[in-house]
């Protein structure tokens, strides 16, 4: 039995009076892509943002339960910035910082104390290659990142996340604003990244979860309805609510 990379136990989240997540427990293995699907307000994003402690930014946030990464309780001693370095996040809308392409990616490593120009160049190149963006931007690294297309911006954000060498990457609906070709490129990048990282992919696009993820979790109104191998979820789900959602009968 391999021990899980991330272990979530009885995770319960409230924002003021809103009960966002109810007693969710699940494990995420090393080098797997866990797809998280479910309709709006199902708690997928709250779940994701609990893993890098982004929910802490919300004023009236309360949580109970435990999340451990490599056996360490992330709400215990771990410092938040260190955690977020280890657990990268890619957002729904690509948000390049108002800097050049190069500086967008070098920003993270610089924060963590790397200042050698040569080292930064290496990191930037490596990260851009891993995100399948290097060939498209290598001649214009000094140009503002805002001039890239939406799909390129999203891959830039992935590269930026990779540059700080995380162990886990959280994707929060990364393709919701992208066209099918850009989406395919981002998905390809994810499949490649799997061999080195643990990936959690929250998506509104059930087909994307079917294409990319190894296992899929279905959330509904803050509850974890079902988690299983992706082909099982999509062919013979144990719960009728899962099949209803996948077949598009609601949500």
């Amino acid at each position: 039995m391999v021990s899980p990379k991330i272990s979530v136990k009885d995770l319960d989240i409230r924002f003021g009076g809103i009960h966002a997540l109810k007693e969710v427990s699940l494990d995420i293995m090393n080098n797997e892509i866990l797809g998280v699907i479910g309709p709006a307000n199902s708690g997928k994003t709250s779940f994701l943002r609990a893993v890098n402690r982004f929910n802490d930014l919300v004023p009236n946030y309360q949580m109970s339960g435990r999340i451990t990464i490599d056996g360490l309780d992330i709400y215990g001693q771990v410092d938040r910035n260190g955690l977020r370095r280890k657990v990268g996040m890619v957002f729904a809308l690509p948000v390049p910082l108002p800097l050049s392409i190069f500086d967008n990616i070098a920003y993270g490593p610089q924060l963590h104390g790397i200042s050698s120009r040569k080292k930064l160049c290496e990191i930037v190149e490596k990260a851009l290659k891993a995100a399948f963006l290097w060939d498209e931007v290598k001649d214009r690294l000094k140009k503002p990142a805002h001039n890239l297309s939406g799909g390129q911006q999203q891959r830039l954000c992935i590269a930026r996340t990779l540059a700080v060498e995380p162990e886990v990457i959280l994707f929060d609906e990364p393709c919701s604003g992208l066209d099918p070709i850009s989406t395919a490129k981002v998905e390809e990048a994810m499949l490649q990244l799997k061999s080195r990282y643990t990936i959690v992919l929250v998506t509104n696009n059930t087909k994307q979860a079917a294409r990319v993820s190894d296992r899929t979790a279905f959330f509904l109104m803050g509850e974890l309805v079902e988690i299983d191998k992706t082909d099982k979820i999509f062919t013979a789900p144990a719960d009728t609510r899962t099949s209803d959602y996948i077949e598009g009968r609601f949500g």
Partner: protein
Amino acid sequence: MTRDKRNQRIREFFIEKTISASGIASVVIVVLIFVFLLKDGLSLFKIESIQDFLSGKLWYPISDPPKFGILPLILGSIVVTAGATAISVPIGVASAIYIAEVSSPRIKEYLKAGVELLAAIPSVVLGFIGVVTLVPFVKQFFNLPTGLTAFSGSIMLAFMAMPTIVSIAEDALTAVPRSYREGALALGATKWQTIYKVTVPSAASGIVAAVMLGVGRVIGETMAVMMITGNAAVIPKSIFQPVRTLTATIAAEMGETVRGSDHFYALFAIGIVLFLITFFINMIADLYLHREKR
């Protein structure tokens, strides 16, 4: 039915015309003010060259022959403004950052109310407070012959520029998309790293505009500087000497001059200089504000 429609159209017509008339009126009034300012101000240059006026070191408007050199006044304005800027910008920007990025929502409310209250104090009241408290303090603390100095004026004007700087810079910082901050935080940046590498640079143009508007307010300010800076029209050698600003000169002498005299025209010419300075400062601020929107 048709009558209703016609009434409606007439009403629309009048409302529309009234609104456009008000809009045009504000422009016309500004143009008229400028025309009158030019008309009286330019009359001075029939007897005095522009160069002597701007670079003359002596301001003796009522001696015979009169000397209309406004260099000491320009320098007075610059010294007081520079001092006020040096004091108010760091404090103002820092408190805008604190209000926008650091403080809890409750403290934020109190602070914003406080800043607005500071903006509401009439300048003559600030000047009065300055005369009673600040001036004796400066005199004693720096062991000067008088506390009525450019330095005292700078401090008092800094109080006046601060509300403008704080509230506009705070707006600019608040307008930075939350996603920028989250992007930086997700990379493991600390709060302070996020503020100084992402939030402040993103709001930079708005902050510059805030500073320029604050400076514009300081240059145009009259009452408090007149009460505090000592009103000596000499070229200042240090910030701890009395100075006299462009604005204070106009305010102090306009009542004692004869309409249509050279002195009268000279004061209007000072008005033109002031107008141009404020105009350029506001234009720079405007450029930065619009650059941010694009």
